[in-house]
């Protein structure tokens, strides 16, 4: 049977690639600290020796549009082209090609449907920075096959927060039921407090440092019930108009499990948002 060897949740700041590769006067003052934190974070995946990555992200109106918007979608393609013109333009992200894992995609779809999730699927998904950013930070070799899972976190109506947690729990069961001798890591990215296109954007810190502090505590402690008792679709507008991406963190808490304390917790307070990095080892910390 497959083994779930690491559960990883992080923010996906699209400027990391540019900041970490910049030199001379172009290199921002926070770049070295950021790179050091990312390299430490990357090691938490490397030491788990995964064979395949299940990657949870959210399309930013690059591939998916309002004519036919799925709430949860699984990619089932042999390869995934990645990053779009407007991500190159805005963030300097490179075009990428990632290998898919169709067998695991098929397993997730079949078992997910049977578990009560009416999952959409795509045989021609092209993926964006919600998935390429964690590849760049955690697996820059981009050498492992992936199964992308997209959630809708910004085209209302959105699924309820508890649904993200439930899907996370099911994803874990589905992976652990996969009859393959493979080591699987689940990597998901979301946001803490964030405002985009609104009056609170691009401040010196994230728009709601107090929400960020509590969110990091919920995630680090696996406090799913505490989180669910305070977070609603309505309440997520308060810390910033793009904070619904926090529900992807909630999905990852579902994968990690109630009360599961993260084995690696780190944060970085950047302009306009707080970066946060978490790793759990369901089978214990690798030697």
């Amino acid at each position, binding site marked *: 049977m497959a083994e779930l060897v690491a559960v990883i949740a992080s923010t996906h700041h699209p400027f990391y690639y540019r900041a970490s590769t910049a030199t001379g006067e172009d290199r921002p003052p926070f770049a070295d600290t950021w790179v050091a934190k990312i390299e430490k974070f990357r090691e938490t995946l490397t030491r788990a020796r995964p064979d395949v990555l299940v990657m949870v992200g959210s399309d930013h*109106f690059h591939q998916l549009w*309002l*004519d036919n918007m799925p709430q949860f979608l699984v990619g089932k393609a042999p390869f995934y082209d990645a990053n779009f*013109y*407007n991500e190159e333009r805005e963030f300097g992200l490179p075009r990428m090609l990632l290998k898919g894992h169709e067998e695991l995609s098929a397993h997730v779809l079949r078992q997910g449907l049977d578990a009560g999730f009416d999952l959409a699927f795509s045989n021609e998904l092209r993926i964006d920075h919600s998935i390429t950013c964690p590849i760049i930070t955690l697996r820059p070799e981009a050498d492992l096959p992936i199964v992308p899972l997209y959630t809708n976190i910004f*085209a*209302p109506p959105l699924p309820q927060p508890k649904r993200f947690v439930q899907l996370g729990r099911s994803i874990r069961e589905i992976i652990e039921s996969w009859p393959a001798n493979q080591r699987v890591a689940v990597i998901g990215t979301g946001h803490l407090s964030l405002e985009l*296109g609104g009056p609170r*954007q691009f401040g010196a810190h994230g728009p709601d440092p107090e929400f960020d502090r509590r969110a990091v505590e919920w995630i680090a402690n696996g406090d799913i019930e505490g989180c669910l008792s305070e977070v609603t679709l309505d309440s997520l507008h308060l810390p910033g108009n793009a904070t619904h991406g926090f529900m992807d963190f909630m999905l990852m808490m579902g994968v990690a499990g109630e009360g599961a304390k993260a084995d690696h917790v780190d944060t970085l307070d950047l*302009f306009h948002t707080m970066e946060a990095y978490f790793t759990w080892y369901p089978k214990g910390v690798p030697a």
Partner: protein
Amino acid sequence: MSKYLVNKFLYTIDRDPDLVERYRADPRGTVGWWESERANTLLNCVSGEASTWLRLDDAEREALADHDYPKLFELGAHPFLTLTLFIAMFERDHDGLDYQKEYARRLAHFSLPYPDIAT
């Protein structure tokens, strides 16, 4: 109100480098051309499947033609789409984060709850 069509304008312009420049240089002309030639081609399909009913209303058309992003915010356009496209057009005229900060300042009269962005 046709928030859907406003968002589709922002979305289709933002994906095409030539249209980004065209909208920057000639916003009113680009909106007029897009509404008459492009707006109603639906279903990622042939022109024979165009919508017979979707159109911008006057306030939406004017907001797009005036590059009036506070008005687009008020009308409930998706802020991610508006911000991304306007950064592409105008960040180049400013230093660092100055454009994004000015954008926030021009929206400072809005408080929660923000206009509904559901389409």
